[in-house]
């Protein structure tokens, strides 16, 4: 599972590369040809949001989330384990609430239909009027759920006394 999340996040990082190319094209088109694109900013917004959201789970897998370890490093191993579990529990509380409500707002903005039954998601209101806000909310739900899965996995591993989880976190 961690492998999958890492790969997925790395894939989303390539979105940054696409954003660079799109922005260059946008500026060249605007000044060189007097024809700004209508799509560059919205696609960039979506790609950026995807990477930002998946980056959380990625850092969790890598163990690179920031924490103040001055006290923790001086604790005896038993207490340290307890503190690590508390940290993961905090993560689980926060992320389950985020995933839960993320799903609800995603549902609300994504599954909207006109009286005649046609799909009518929440849209950005720009000239292109993509369903960008709806997509971002859905991405938030997926990313929070994946992040939660990583946290729960580390919590279970730590509770079972396997040190893999804490090793992953210490390496960051």
């Amino acid at each position, binding site marked *: 599972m961690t492998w999958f999340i890492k790969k997925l996040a790395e894939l989303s990082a*390539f979105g940054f590369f696409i954003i660079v190319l799109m922005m260059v094209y946008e500026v060249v088109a605007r000044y060189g040809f007097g024809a700004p694109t209508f799509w560059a900013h919205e696609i960039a917004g979506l790609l950026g949001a995807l990477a930002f959201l998946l980056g959380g789970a990625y850092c969790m897998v890598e163990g690179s989330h920031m924490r103040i370890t001055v006290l923790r490093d001086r604790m005896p191993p038993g207490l340290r384990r307890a503190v690590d579990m508390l940290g993961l529990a905090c993560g689980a509380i926060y992320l389950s609430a985020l995933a839960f409500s993320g799903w609800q707002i995603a549902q609300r903005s994504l599954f909207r239909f006109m009286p005649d039954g046609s799909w009518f998601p929440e849209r950005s209101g720009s000239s292109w009027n993509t369903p960008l806000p709806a997509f971002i909310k859905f991405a938030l739900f997926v990313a929070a759920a994946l992040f939660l899965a990583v946290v729960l996995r580390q919590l279970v591993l730590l509770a079972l006394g396997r040190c893999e989880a804490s090793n992953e976190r210490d390496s960051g």
Partner: protein
Amino acid sequence: MDIATVSILIVVAMSALLLLGIPVAFVSGTIAVVLAYANFGTAGFFLISTRTAEFVGSFELIAVPMFVLMASIMEKSGVARDLYRAFHVWAGSVRGGIGVVTTGVAVLLGATTGIIGGEIVLLGLIALPQMLRLNYDRKLAIGTITAGGSLGTMIPPSIILIFYGLTAEVSISHLFLATLVPGLMLASFYVAYILIRCGLNPALGPPLPPEERTMPLMEKVALFKGVLLPMLVAGGVLISIYAGFASITESAALGAFGAAIAAWVRNAFSFAMLRSVLVQALRTCGMVFWLVFGTNALIGVYNLMGGITFASNVLAGASQEPAVILVVMIGVFILLGFFIDWIGILFLTMPIFLPVLTQLGYDPIWFGIVFNLSMQIAYLTPPFGPACFYLKGAAGDTLELSEIFAAQWPFIGLQILALIIVVIWPELSLWLPKFVYG
């Protein structure tokens, strides 16, 4: 429970969780969830996810990974090493010369990269061995690198100011201009400090040995060739932002593109490098933004409970004298800086401080620079001094963390001096944006 008690409980819970070593990204988020549930039930969670979705969808944020990309590409293509080489041959027979060169290179790196961590690691790898080889006073050498490397956020482009601009809803390009003079002033304080200390006691910073000073002038000048293109890219990005040629995000993307071209010209560009800089950007965003998500959620919930109004009233009622309130705010910045990162401080305090500040008639652009300078201090102060951690990471076993922290105090003193000057003399930061934008 009244809001005053809740506010105190929030502060206590936050400090406890932070000190225990709970990942910072979870601390404020968890507190937000608990508060939301206690006050509004599961319906309160809506606020958390809506605020997160709104934040993550703002286009300006994309400037952050773009600047990280530009910085990492420059870093990986060896610009810092060439820059250092090009400048260090000019240090000549001046006592403390290499220290001055290190500060100068730090300022230039601040304009090209401006990512604190990367800059300190680079200087720690390139400049520190040089200074130690010349038998520099260890504390002086260490402090020059941590303090100089932190200058990155004082020299535009600055990630701190992007976030501040988004929070305070002021122009980021105005902020970028306003920080320039105070940033250079702080750098010149460091230079003066190094020169004075080495002038009084030559043993602290010996000059280059004579055999290393024999390079002919033309060769010295030729060394600049390697750094010309990256410097042009960095300058171009700033001009594009200042002149309003393209938005901040677009300019940053152009900068990343330009950095890639410059790297390609130097034969340093490859697919493996592209991959690693993209992942680096992903990592930075994952760390920083998830920290913001939690804090942003906490502020949203706290606001709905009437907490922001309460805290602002307490702050505004603290004194009749606006200056006293201002000093309290700066005190809070510095105090929090001992324990948490700038981004946490920004998102926790600004929703409370900014309404009071405008009510008192202070300029939010200037206040951004005051905040920025306060964060310079936060970078260096133990026990949570990111600059010191980065240097420790780069230097490995040659330096003890306690030695690094002990070396910071004179530089912290200089930062406080600069902060005082900027506070009592707002024009110092404000004249440049006024001059350019009218």
